[in-house]
């Protein structure tokens, strides 16, 4: 014992404690997020709970915990009881979708085979039993064998109708609206240009107004098409009963999917998981972001990061080239280098504030005054948008790229450069043909790290153009295709918004964990790529690194 103190062997274990805590923290976090995120797509069984007071509840267990001893009466203080949280859905019928049930109050539980979960477009899930299917008010045959296949068939039909309606609304009507809006702005512009002498522009304006009415006509026909489609869809309904026996007729048009978890086979579970994952990645959010997918957020994040990369790489590389290859190495360059390094440590919110004040209010405001005075006071560029957010993040990540590029440049042995110059190549030729190709992996590492940082940053984006729900993507089929002035959605902000600003936090939790999982996956993937590239690079120039 004395010996271990003297030799310090015991203290080594003590230092290991610090490392152990860090390792447990990081792995614990990843495991926690993974477990909670998987709740999102794993189909939990539907349980039927009969309470001692006769209430019947039907739902999925979302959480189980011990009843806090403060909630127990004095004589039961020493006992431990569990309580379960049920997701009972049916929000429009009972006014809530989660309920805590105490173990002591449960008389009976069972897992009815025919219980179904109906995911709907509004009011959240429905839990209950299907009674009959109606088409145009007429009950369809209720023979067991064909029952589910009829339902599936009708659901396919209605979901196709919904898709068609969606397609018409999104692309065709969306296009029309966009064009009408453009024409309106054009009229505004002309009116602004001919202030005080409107009569000169009257014919031009009349022409434009005529076009608007034409578009309006086209819009009406499309609207008609949508209406007739939805009236067809509305004919299909399904009559369900809740656990307490209340009947409810649900139009198939508002149903996303119907499944009965209690009788799922292994393969249908896999199919369900795949469908859920597909929905998560490729569909739009519903129910104020607590259901559906996160496609617009993924799209926004990726596009923002790409725009940022376009801005950050050329300038970062130019600066690194200047600092390493052209500038005279002295006190001045050392100072600049330290300053640039330290910018990486400046809080991201400061960059956000800068982006707001400089890009949005100053640059954007000036652009609005010069080019879009007719639209004022509603701003065009003088408000948050994807371009401003990307530029802000480009500034934020600039030091990462500069430092990485500089490191890569410094790692290239002098001899290689000198032999190129000795062969008569100019400095630029040496840089272009010798230095830059050799430094490319290093630059790439810097870029990837910058992308990872950019993808995970939220604070500066919150004030430069991220929104909780963007009506349209920053890239669409309308000229000029890239709408850099548009606001966008972002995975990181999605986590903050859904987790903290959502009206129904309980319902949103699985969604937040899933989004978190996705974001971490993205960031970790980028980082690992960078690490691998860097490791290879290090090996290559092992002799010259410090």
């Amino acid at each position, binding site marked *: 014992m004395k010996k271990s103190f003297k030799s310090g062997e015991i203290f080594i274990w003590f230092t290991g404690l610090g490392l152990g805590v860090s390792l447990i923290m990081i792995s614990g976090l990843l495991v926690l997020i993974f477990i909670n995120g998987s709740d999102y797509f794993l189909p939990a069984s539907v349980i039927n709970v009969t309470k001692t007071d006769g209430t019947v509840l039907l739902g999925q267990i979302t959480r189980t915990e011990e009843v806090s001893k403060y909630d127990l009466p004095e004589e039961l203080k020493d006992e431990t009881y569990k309580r379960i949280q049920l997701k009972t859905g049916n929000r429009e019928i009972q006014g809530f979708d989660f309920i805590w049930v105490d173990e002591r109050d449960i008389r009976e539980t069972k897992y009815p085979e025919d219980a179904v979960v109906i995911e709907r477009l509004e009011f959240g899930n429905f839990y209950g039993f299907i009674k009959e299917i109606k088409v145009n008010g007429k009950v369809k045959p209720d023979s067991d064998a064909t029952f589910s296949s009829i339902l599936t068939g009708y659901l396919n039909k209605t979901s196709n109708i919904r898709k068609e309606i969606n397609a018409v609304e999104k692309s065709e009507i969306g296009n029309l609206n966009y064009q009408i809006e453009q024409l309106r702005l054009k009229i505004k512009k002309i009116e602004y240009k001919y202030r005080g002498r409107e009569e000169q522009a009257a014919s031009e304006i009349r022409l434009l107004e005529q076009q608007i009415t034409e578009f309006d006509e086209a819009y009406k026909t499309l609207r008609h098409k949508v209406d007739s489609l939805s009236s067809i869809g509305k004919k299909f309904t399904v009559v369900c009963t809740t656990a307490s026996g209340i009947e409810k007729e649900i139009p198939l048009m508002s149903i996303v999917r119907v499944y009965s978890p209690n009788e799922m086979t292994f393969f249908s579970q896999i199919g369900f998981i795949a469908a859920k994952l597909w929905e998560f990645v490729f569909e739009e959010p519903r129910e104020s972001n607590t259901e559906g997918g996160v496609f617009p957020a993924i799209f926004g994040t990726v596009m923002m990061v790409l725009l940022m990369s376009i801005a950050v790489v050329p300038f970062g590389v130019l600066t690194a080239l200047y600092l390493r290859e052209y500038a005279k190495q002295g006190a001045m360059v050392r100072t600049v280098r330290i300053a640039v390094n330290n910018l990486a440590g400046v809080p991201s919110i400061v960059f956000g504030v800068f982006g707001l004040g400089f890009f949005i209010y100053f640059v954007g405001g000036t652009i609005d005054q010069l080019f879009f005075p007719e639209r004022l006071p509603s701003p065009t560029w003088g408000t948050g948008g994807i371009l401003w957010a990307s530029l802000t993040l480009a500034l934020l990540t600039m030091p990462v790229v500069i430092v990485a590029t500089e490191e890569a440049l410094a790692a290239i042995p002098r001899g290689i450069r000198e032999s190129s110059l000795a062969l008569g190549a100019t400095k630029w030729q040496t840089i272009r043909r010798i230095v830059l190709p050799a430094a490319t992996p290093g630059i790439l590492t810097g870029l990837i790290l910058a992308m990872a940082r950019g993808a995970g940053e939220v604070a500066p984006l919150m004030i430069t153009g991220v929104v909780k729900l963007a009506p349209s993507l920053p890239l669409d089929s309308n000229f000029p295709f890239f709408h850099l002035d548009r606001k966008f959605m972002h995975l990181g902000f999605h986590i903050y918004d859904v987790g*903290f600003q959502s009206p129904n936090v309980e319902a949103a939790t699985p969604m937040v964990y899933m989004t978190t999982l996705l974001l971490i996956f993205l960031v970790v993937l980028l980082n690992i790529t960078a690490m691998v590239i860097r490791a290879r690079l290090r090996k290559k120039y092992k002799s010259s690194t410090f």
Partner: protein
Amino acid sequence: MHKLKDQQGQDNNHNNKTSGRSGHRRAIFYDKAAKIIILSGGIATIIAVLGILAFVFYEAYPLWFGSKAELDTKLDASEIIVNRQPLLIGIDEYQEIAYVVTDSATIDFIDLKRNSFIKSISIAGLEDEKIISVSRSLSNYLIGVGTASGKIGMLKLNFTIRFLQTGERIIEPEAEIQNVLLVDSLKRAVTKVAYRLDYDSQPSFAAVVNDSELILYSQQRKRSLLEPTQVQEFLTTVGDFPQNSISAIELDDFCEKLMIGTTDGNLYYYSVKAKDKPVLIQKIMVTESNKTSVTALSFIIGDQTLIVGDEKGNVSSWMRILDDKSVYGWKMVRSHKFNSLSSSVTQISPSPRNKSFIAAGKDGIINVNHLTSERTLLELSAKSLPIKDVAFSPKSNGALVLYEDNSLAKFEIESPHPEITLKTVFGKVWYEGYQKPEFVWQSSGGTDDFEPKFSLIPLIVGTLKGTFYALIFAIPIALLGALYTSSFSHPRIKNIIKPTVEIMAALPSVVIGFLAGLWLAPLLEKILPGVILIFILSPLMVFGGFFLSKKIPQWMNFKLKPGFEIILIVPLLLIGIQISLWLGPFFEQVVFGGDYRQWLLSALNEQYDQRNSIVVGFAMGFAVIPIIFTICEDSLSSVPQHLTSASLALGATRWQTALRVVLPTASPGIFSAIMIGFGRAIGETMIVLMATGNTPIMDFSPFNGMRTLSANIAVEIPEAPYHGTLYRVLFLSATLLFIMTFFVNTAAEIVRQRLRKKFMDV
């Protein structure tokens, strides 16, 4: 590399064959062009990046600009209004029309743009009377007059604004005579008046007869469920004052507080809430001696603070605070003192927009002061004549002055940030409604008369508090971990640990913040005693494991290779954590008597908030640990090998070498690691935003939250109007953050570079 060289060689051959000299020239041209582009691009980027600080600073800088005023119009009213003596003036919102109340019971309107007379309205019912006293309400449009023969009049002005087709603005002034009545049956002169409408639009009119008797005329609407609403009239005499003793009176906008200033320097505070029974709440000396008379009284917008001006030119503000000793629970105290005027204060005019007011002196000097900042924004003077009246324009961007010789002067006032001084941002300020001067951040309130509170101190304290709790958690763990990794762990273990920690560093802070706020905070509230136990039990577990591991080899043929201890430590830790959580409730029972929150409240007088500093410390620690760890580990590993080898060769153990050789040599690196960690914690936004309650409080208790500078910016800047005071104050806090982190990081960087050089030399 060979391939690249070959390529170039081919290129050169190619050039030689085809173009020869011109190729050479082109190469030189490209070389020059590239040089120019790289130089300009590089330098421009550096300037742009460094320009961020300049811009952020530049946006905050105008806070310290003073106010500006310009003499805009000067005109002689006696040329426009003949044979009548102007007594009171006022101005409309657009500063185009001035009104003048004259002694022959008329209101005259003057077009200030064209210096022309618009119209004159005589006050019906007071035609042949001589007006000797006047008052104007804060809103500028409510006027009370008193005559030499005991009558009073109540008027309301309206400025109707129309826009013509051409876009031109037409303002039409109108005066509505609301009431005229006789208040003194003896028909003595009404020497002072004060007139207000309460929230029910019922008038209260205080009139002083012969400077000695105060009569309050008021109406009150009585509402009852059964009867129709009735309006009751009251005519009450307030107090009992000696002959010629009342020198100033003021009534508040709720028609509840009546303030009376006397020639012997006293202020009488009457509550006239019950219209028929005025109650004297307090009599207090507000001037230096009983020979100095109170000459002007006025409430500031919000009616919380009374400005008192006296004969000697002193200007001070008095505010009502809670007082246990007083019968009525209130007392008046002096909250601020302003720059004195060089002569007797003749008039005090509050701003209808903010907490500024004008104090005018007998010698024609006007001071524009601001209540919160105690700052004299402007000192104006157009003529050195006594001032009869001063009026703030409704938008507070101008002031109209009436001099003894009946000339008018209009000033344009530009005072964008009157409430900001170094003291209001960094010092204690006595705000309205507070018992004492305090540091408060509360940038906006529900009402127009809200007094903004811009003290950055609670935010700075919050920032330091969050950073402190993060660092006391992170530093030991990161340092120990780095020491273990660099000095004791096997290279194979090291190759796993380092990327893992890098992944930890890359985790977006929004993820950590979300887990801290939504998962950890509610969990911690339940298991806090168990968590405290972890800190005791886990090390014990590890030490126990150590001693066991020394014994195991004798039992079994197993020996733990040095450098692989971590493989045992992690499971031991996990077991320790599990046991602690399991024992938590017992621990709580034994130490805290059943409920730790109750215990905290009774023993330490601490309220446990769910989102508190412990949560923030843990979460922000999560973000800071990998940063400190990586830099520490870097500098510890780069201690030259020959130093450690020498130490080990001399017979020192691994631990002795680490403690005596490696640590001291790398200590500057450890310092810089801690500094950089500190910098990161200061600026962290999302974690604090999500894991605290964001209340700007000033205390260091670990059981409640905080609001940091960075979270404050994120919360408030979306609502801050461009170039408004809040906007600029937030830029000021961004500048502070920038400077703090920049200095900390620079210090760390310089230390690190020195260290690197030292290692190269050794």
